[in-house]
């Protein structure tokens, strides 16, 4: 192996040649993956969790877990990376590539100051000026006070920018992004994507995501990965317009999109045509939660209702108070004022003071079904126990009802006796729904219940919720920051801004004629695959002739 000198001053090309990575048990994580990434292009790698996309990205940095078996080769600018001496890999990571992983703020060491965090990543001497430039590059202040701060003294948005500034501080021309905006609300996501887009010129970028709408905003070239194999690749627009594989077509279809509003059902009109009583009614709710820096108002005089068979979406940016409202409704957060009515009856603020029947009426499905299920308990047993408790039936019968519910939420009976760790994320969320249904609730509160799921899985769970809502006349309060999801499921929309309801109306009223600035902002920052495709006519695609980008000076 003749190591060529690494030259990191130009946008490099990355070649991946028949890369196969297997775990110690012989299961293939990546199987014969070959990919040429040309200088200056942006490649989006899309796939579900477990498709091997993160493993692929990290392999470019020579970071493959020691227990994994690796075959094939990766070269950055002609320099082999896999199996290269440690010094070559270290130099690539230090000078040759910028890497940003999922949840960028988590990459900031809490004990270090802003200036130390940046200085560590500057390859040359980390002068005062060099740090200033790195901070200014992502529109952060660079005054002495700001430099002395630690990550927890920054706002969420500043943390995002700082993490990006750090990744870019070595001025490398290879940018590797692993789900950089997953778990962010749309507003922050838009900010981060804009910032990345600004930094892209003259760089070779690889972005890995499960979200096609995010990749659509950046990528020239699309790679679709499934079970460790590339099943489709090509110029982004062409591939998305005419997917060759059923799989990609399915992903495109499942992608939540503002522009894909579901058929509106007439809201809260009963089959008989007369007005129905609301299943849940919240009046003048005031709630606050304590943080280190004082009390934050999560709900200021919030009133709304949910009718049987209706899905009401509660949307807003992170920190706008959505979850606190949900917690107040189910009675685990004590509100300062206001009433909660279930079936037209005012209930006690604390769940412990509510009657069995009142507790039964409203059920919560959390974002993370992993945390909601006892890992040591078989899911069937957990479900049967909920049936037993809520319906007061004998154990033998509870198992039978449990199994019916299990099948009702689209789970195969074979999974009934598994423990949660043997189920996928989507299956676990279905179990959580089945457990909620065991109580025969009037209202289901879904707090970001699908935001941790892959898009195709998410689509299935959303369809299930819509079906249950229709067939069981369930009222659903769906809390989310994803307007694409709202378009798919909601009948009415409530927009929350800083604890205040700033807008409400039917789906088409809010989406087509938004009144409040916050609503417009949320709508404009929501990634929409169809809108992005329309914007990006073929003429927008950059032609990256070799060498053309080399002359550009490094960005400040």
């Amino acid at each position, binding site marked *: 192996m003749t190591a060529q000198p690494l030259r990191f001053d130009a946008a490099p090309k990355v070649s991946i040649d028949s890369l196969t990575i297997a775990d110690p048990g012989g299961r293939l994580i990546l199987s014969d993956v070959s990919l040429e990434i040309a200088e200056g292009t942006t490649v989006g790698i899309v796939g579900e969790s477990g498709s091997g996309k993160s493993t692929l990205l990290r392999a470019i940095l020579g970071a493959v877990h020691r227990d994994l078996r690796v075959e094939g080769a990766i070269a950055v600018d002609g320099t082999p990376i896999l199996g290269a001496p440690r010094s070559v890999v270290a130099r690539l990571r*230090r000078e040759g590539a910028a890497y940003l992983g999922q949840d960028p703020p*988590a990459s*900031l060491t*809490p004990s*270090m100051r802003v200036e130390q965090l940046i200085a560590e990543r500057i390859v040359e001497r980390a002068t005062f000026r060099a740090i200033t430039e790195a901070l200014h590059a992502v529109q952060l202040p660079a005054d002495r006070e700001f430099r002395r701060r630690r990550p*927890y003294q920054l706002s969420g948005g500043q943390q995002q920018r700082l993490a990006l500034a750090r990744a870019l501080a070595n001025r490398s021309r290879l940018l590797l992004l692993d789900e950089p905006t997953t778990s962010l609300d749309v*507003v922050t996501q838009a*900010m981060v994507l804009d910032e990345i887009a600004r930094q892209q010129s003259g760089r070779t970028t690889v972005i890995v995501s499960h979200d096609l709408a995010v990749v659509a905003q950046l990528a020239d070239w699309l790679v679709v990965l499934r079970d460790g194999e590339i099943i489709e690749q090509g110029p982004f627009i062409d591939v998305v317009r005419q997917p060759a594989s059923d799989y990609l077509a399915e992903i495109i279809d499942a992608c939540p999109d503002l522009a894909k509003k579901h058929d509106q059902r007439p809201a809260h009109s009963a089959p008989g045509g007369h007005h129905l009583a609301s299943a849940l009614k919240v009046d003048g709710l005031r709630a606050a939660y304590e*943080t280190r820096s004082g009390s934050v108002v999560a709900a200021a005089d919030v009133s709304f209702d949910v009718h049987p068979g209706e899905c009401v979406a509660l949307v807003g940016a992170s920190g706008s108070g959505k979850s606190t409202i949900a917690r107040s409704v189910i009675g685990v957060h004590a509100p300062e004022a206001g009433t909660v009515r279930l079936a037209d009856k005012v209930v006690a603020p604390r769940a412990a003071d509510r009657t069995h029947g009142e507790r039964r009426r409203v059920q919560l499905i959390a974002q993370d079904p992993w945390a909601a299920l006892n890992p040591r308990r078989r899911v069937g047993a957990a479900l049967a126990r909920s049936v037993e408790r809520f319906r007061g039936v004998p154990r033998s019968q509870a198992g039978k009802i449990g199994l019916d519910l299990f099948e009702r939420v689209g789970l195969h009976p074979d999974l009934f006796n598994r423990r949660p760790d043997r189920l996928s994320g989507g299956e676990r969320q279905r179990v959580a729904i089945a457990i909620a249904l065991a109580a025969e609730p009037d209202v289901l509160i879904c707090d970001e219940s699908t935001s941790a799921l892959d898009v195709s899985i998410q689509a299935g769970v959303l369809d299930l919720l819509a079906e249950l809502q229709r067939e069981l006349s369930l009222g659903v309060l769906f809390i989310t920051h994803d307007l694409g999801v709202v378009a798919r499921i909601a009948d009415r929309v409530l927009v929350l801004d800083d604890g205040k309801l700033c807008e409400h109306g039917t789906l088409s009223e809010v989406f087509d004629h938004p009144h409040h600035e916050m609503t417009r902002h949320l709508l404009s920052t929501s990634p929409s695959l169809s809108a992005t495709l329309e914007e990006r006519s073929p003429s927008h695609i950059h032609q990256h002739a070799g060498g053309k980008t080399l002359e550009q000076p490094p960005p400040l």
Partner: protein
Amino acid sequence: MPIVLRLLSRLAISLALLLAVSIAVFASVEILPGDPATTILGRNASPDRVDALREQLGLDNSPVVRYWDWLKSTAQGDLGLQATGNRSVWSTISTPLRNTAILAVVAFATTSIAAVGGGLIAGRRPGNRTDRVLSIGTLSIVAMPEFVIAGLLISLFAFRLDWVSSVSLVPLGGTPLDAPSTLILPVATITLVAGSYGLRLVRALVAEASAQPFVEAARLAGVRETAVLRRHLLPSVAAPTAQVLAFSVPYLIGGTVIVEQVFAYPGLGSLLVEQIARRDVTVVEAIAMIMTTAVIAGFLIADLLGALTARHIPRSDSRPSAALP
């Protein structure tokens, strides 16, 4: 709760604990068979002489009165006279106390180095060969009683290799520091036991921190491993690690009884065993109280370090995210 209030309340709890222990110590010495009067006069002394001596020593008072007298003078720093003989308790215990303190300080230093150094090396890449060797090695040591470890060290280094003496012969009128070789085997034994235990705890902390996204990010950015450990990993485990080390203090003071016995090290532990055999109530009580104070102080320090850890920097995602531009 403000940190000052917290400190005061912990201090109050510690004092109450010390008082409770003092009652327990007094009571347990009280129920030991025999008393100093018979020990001093021998078994064949006439009952009259025993009674006279008991009265002279104040042993005929009720236990409550004697406890109160003892507590009062102890609190004032007066440890009183030996029950058997006329030397003051302080003159009896001061030299052994100093010797034990020297042993404890040296052993604390070596234990800390072993626990933190080994814990970092083992935990920084959980599951690699170094980690497995250290984890299994320390587990075997932790599972062994300390007198077995001491015995093994003696048979290897004193008898087979003849590098050091099997007993700690401190020069007359000198300190163990005048003959540092006397410290080697006792310190080695304590370090193996307390260090192994500490290493396992620190390793678990480091392994957990090693999986933190910011440590991983530093590694993926090509930061040198020494800098990764020093700048990114150590600060996040510093406070709980200090707590682990503080928890070893009680062992270093109280747990050395067996080690001192095995090596005949002239410390507090050896003195304690000797004085229990002589039924010298006042000396035993004094030693027990000194050891208890050290133990409680160790736990107090550990608790306070723990409280500081709890005040540690919050995770970033507990904050509201970006505001509108």
